[in-house]
């Protein structure tokens, strides 16, 4: 995972939860951050907008830490790039 991607994921979560960014580390578990189910759907919404991806419900349910979230997003970005038509060289 790139540092940039992790940084963006941390920033999005911090912004939704109104936490100082340094409180959200790559090893933070959502539970430690005090995230409830409504916080979680807001974070997913914000991440979908940030990365222009769609995060399926079933995948989202199995994610419990910032690291898992960043890994999942990386996979979704890669899958999206692979399925996109090879235009705009």
């Amino acid at each position: 995972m790139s540092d940039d991607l992790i940084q963006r994921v941390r920033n999005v979560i911090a912004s939704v939860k109104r936490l100082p960014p340094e409180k959200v580390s790559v090893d933070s578990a959502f539970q430690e951050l005090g995230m409830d189910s409504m916080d979680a759907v807001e974070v997913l919404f914000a991440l979908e907008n940030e990365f222009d991806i769609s995060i399926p419900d079933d995948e989202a349910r199995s994610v419990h830490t910032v690291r898992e979230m960043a890994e999942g997003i990386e996979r979704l970005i890669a899958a999206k790039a692979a399925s996109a038509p090879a235009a705009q060289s």
Partner: protein
Amino acid sequence: MRRVAITGLGVICALGRNTAEFWESLCAAQSGIGPLESVDTADLRFRNGAEVRGYSHQPYFEDRRADFLDRFAQFAVIAAREAVQDAGIAWTPQLRETTAIVTGACVGGQSTEDTGFLDVYKLGHNRVHPLTIPKTMANAGASHISMEFGVTGPSFTISTACSSAGHAIGQAYWMVRSGIADMALTGGSEAPFSFGILKAWEAMRVVSPDTCRPFSRDRRGMILGEGAAMLVLEPLEAAAARGARIHAEIVGFGMSADAAHITQPSAEGAAKAICGALRDAALRPEQVGYVNAHGTGTAANDPTETRALRLMFGPHAERLAISSTKSMHGHALGAAGAIEAAATVLALREGVLPPTANYSMPDPECDLDVIPNQARHAEVEYAISNSFAFGGLNAVLAFRKT
């Protein structure tokens, strides 16, 4: 205080256009859930809903009258007409003056609003249809029912999300019981299928991509539904004196607020509303035989509701028969409490408990008797119907077999 009888029922929903069709589907565990017809679902994460399939305002309304009624208000009037006819009401000037109308509605005329927003925000039109406001307002159902029958008594609409109709019927019950009204038309109606609001539901991540499986371990969320149900309430003595058919008695109403979280339900708040309904009815928990559950089929509701029932009923919870008919008619939001009240009343009257359909596997967190997949013959004297809303506002109704 007066005892209150239910003398009229009217239902229109995914399970049928009238009470008889509705009851037949419930007993057969026949689900009304299927691919949505009224909205293009290509850009949605879910495809299914519990719609009144093939609905058209004809033969219910002349074209010009229908122009004034959003789909949700049409459903309200259709259900009220059936309930009034079922009750065999002979209107007199005095009865019209002393009849109350209390309806529940959560989102109001959504498809009308959506069309207006599409006009100004997307299509670049500089004006929307002049009937957008009167068609969208949540009280349109109550207003059109009052005009339909010339009823001039106290009339209003309650909007408490998924508890709207439960709160409405409860208020109407108390008004008839106390003598504020000599009769009430009460229930709820909803027609939430517009693209904009479906997108909002999608973002909540609580709608199932396939079907609604309340209390089942593999449940994946709720399925939205539409429709209306209306009840005619009148004093038991007056109903008996005029020889009316009494479907059941309404004997208690309880409400509470979770005061906890805007979407996460609370077992304590739910139990408090159940407790209130039993206290209002002067019932001991052991007297209740059937619970029509809120049972949305979401990850959060079903285990929380199970905990609430255990909190309230203690060891008797093991002997309670519980079902979620949302598995068949979907979650009709502001109409849910009314459609489910109708199901509960019919269950008492007919001695048949409707099942929880689509049930496939036990969940240790929802380990009560949920009447899986098959209706059950059972003579039950008392039953309750639960409504627990987003926002934590709860309403529970208690009924007695006549």
